[in-house]
């Protein structure tokens, strides 16, 4: 098996996602980066499921996709409301919790 290729791809995707989350200013882009992270995890799950010849990993991946869809729905709604209030989705402006 070429598990290591899948894992490397997943690690790359994860790293790209983390970079996006930490570095992008646009909230929508951050949300998309989070999708990348989730999908990197999905890849890992599938890879190990095939390796171990077990179906539970694939089931898990399905759940993750469903939950990710819901999460994006909620996240986009939040961003929409933030935009309506402040006419901006720049996360650098969202520092109301600063101590």
């Amino acid at each position, binding site marked *: 098996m070429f598990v290591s290729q899948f894992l490397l791809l997943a690690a790359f995707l994860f790293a790209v996602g*983390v970079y996006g*989350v*930490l*570095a992008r200013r646009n909230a929508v882009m*951050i949300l998309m980066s989070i999708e990348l992270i989730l999908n990197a995890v999905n890849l890992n799950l599938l890879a190990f499921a095939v390796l171990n010849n077990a179906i539970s990993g694939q089931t898990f991946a399905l759940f993750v996709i469903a939950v990710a869809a819901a999460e994006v729905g909620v996240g986009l709604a939040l961003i929409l409301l933030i935009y309506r209030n402040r006419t901006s989705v720049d*996360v*650098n402006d*969202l*520092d*109301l*919790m*600063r*101590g």
Partner: protein
Amino acid sequence: MLDNAYLVPLIPAVSFVAILFFGKRIKGGQGAHWIGIPAVASSWVLSVAVLWQWIQRVEDAGGEAEHAQGASTMVDGVRALLTRVTEGAEEGHTFVGAVINTVDWWTIDGVDFQVGTLVDGLSAILLFVVSSVSLLVHVYSSEYVKGDRRYTHYFAFLSLFTASMLFFVLAENTIQMIIGWELVGVCSYVLIGHWWEEKPNADAALKAFLTNRIGDVGLMIGVVVLYWGTREAGQNTFSIDTINRLAASGEIRHLILLVGALCLTAAVMSKSGQFPLHTWLPDAMAGPTPVSALIHAATMVVAGVYMVARLYPVFYEGLSIGTSSINVLAFVGGFTALMGAALAFVHWDIKKVLAYSTISQLGYMVMALGVGAWTAAIFHLVTHAFFKAGLFLGAGSVSHAAHHTFDLREMGGLRKYMPSTYWTFLICSLALAGVFPLAGFWSKDEILVGAFRGQDNGYPLMLAFGLIVALMTAAYMFRVIYYTFHGEYRGHGVPHESPRTMTVPLWCFAGLAIVAGVVNLPAPVLEPFGLEGLAHRIETYAEPIEFLEQFDSFTVADPSLGMAILGTVMALAGIGIAYLWFWRGLGPHGLTERNRVAWHGYHFLENRYFLDHLYTGVIVGSIKGPIARATYWFNQNVIDAVVDACGTYSTRFARWLYRNIDQGVIDRTVNAGGEGAELSGAGLRKIQTGRIQQYGALLFGAAAVLAVVFVIVI
């Protein structure tokens, strides 16, 4: 009844409580006598029962003794009396111990304090006298104080007084005696001040109370001294019976008896109005007249006389009455009798004249006790209670009819308007003067005989006092009668006879003043009628020979005819002098205006020997100034200094505490805690940026570090 004698004072006591709670509800506050009179009436019935049963008891004891000697048998009291009549009076009578019932009250250090009743001839006689006078006064009062705003209050305290006096009479021990003594004092105080809205009345009440306190101190010390006497004799008791027994048998030392008797004499001086503590009694006339009749003539003021009679062995032994020919008791009594009678001449207030007469007659009784004529003293107590109460009620009736005045100058000629009052007053006056054959004649005669014969030797000075007082008594009483009932009416308005609720008690007292003498008639008088067995009833039933039988003196001398004639001559001479002076206008009238010596004498009497000035001005004045100043100095310099020092040092200590402990230790600790929290907060604040990406960077960075650590370690 002898065993349940406690019921006699209990009934008026219950009546007192009942009147207090419910009296105002009856007839709009004017019906308290509907409780008071029945209560006292039932007390009276029970007193009569006690007296009757005591007589029976003595007779039965005598009967048994005679039975043992083979003499006639006796069935009941009446037959017993009659049998004794036929047997003659000369044989000795048997002594019957008192009926004593007690319950333990409390015990401390091996001493039992008890409450109970002591019934013997003396207390039975007093029960009868007190409840009789009280009953008649209750009836009289229901008219006299009618419409008074404190009608209920008046009857409540009349009931309480009756209960207290009966309780005092039945006292089994000296502690109970003190309680009864104080209770009657309080009732006297309340009733003298019944119309306290007027200042003189309130002052009189206070004066009576405070003067009595002086004697009360003597009473308490005397009781304690006697207790120590019994303790020395190994008895540890307050029981009157035991004290008497020990005193008579000589088991208590003479010195203790002497000190005890002297202290108790001080108590007699205040309560029974003896010189020099008599000054409260004339002022006590500020109270309602029936109160004066009941409390300040017939019953409470004889408490002192009764106490001496009750503890007679103490006085007899302590003052050596049997062997001396003068002693404190006899002298104080005789002197009081003389000077009280002298004061009765100069006063214009009819009640004050009667008050001084009461002082004088109480002096007579005390003198009789002092010379050892025990029976005569009690006899005189009984007769005096009846005729003096009658005189007071007569004075009340006069004032009730004649515009509420007691001033003799505003009376006169009342004989026509109020015949009942006049005749009863005259009868009682004659009885007081000691005119044959009224009650006062017999009792006064016995006292004179007692003073003449004395015990081992006579009391000549007392006999002289007694005879002079007999003359003076007759004279001042007829002065009062002249000014009140004869001549022309000097007041205003038309006087009228009092209603029947007042005249009936008057006639009852007048009747008693006539017949009360029969209770102790001498044998020679009764001999012609074949009734000589009825002679000397008080002597037979009451004399405490049980304790003092070793003294022959206690059998009263059969009066000599000479003494009786001498006494009567004195009384008639007094009446004659008064008649000549007032009715005929003879004698040196106006002497007091012409002669300096006479004027000074009159002035001296009018101001009551300046005793009131001495007490309030000299004694009280000289004591209260320095004492007040000394107290003020003490207050300022000692008490205030202590208080100030306490305050100053407390302040200083508190200030030190504030500075060093509160500010220095506690506050600093708290502040340090606060500052620490502030500093750490300020430090942590810097990493709280509010930027979510920075948090995320930290999170992922930490996760990366952990991953590296895991990889390397594992």
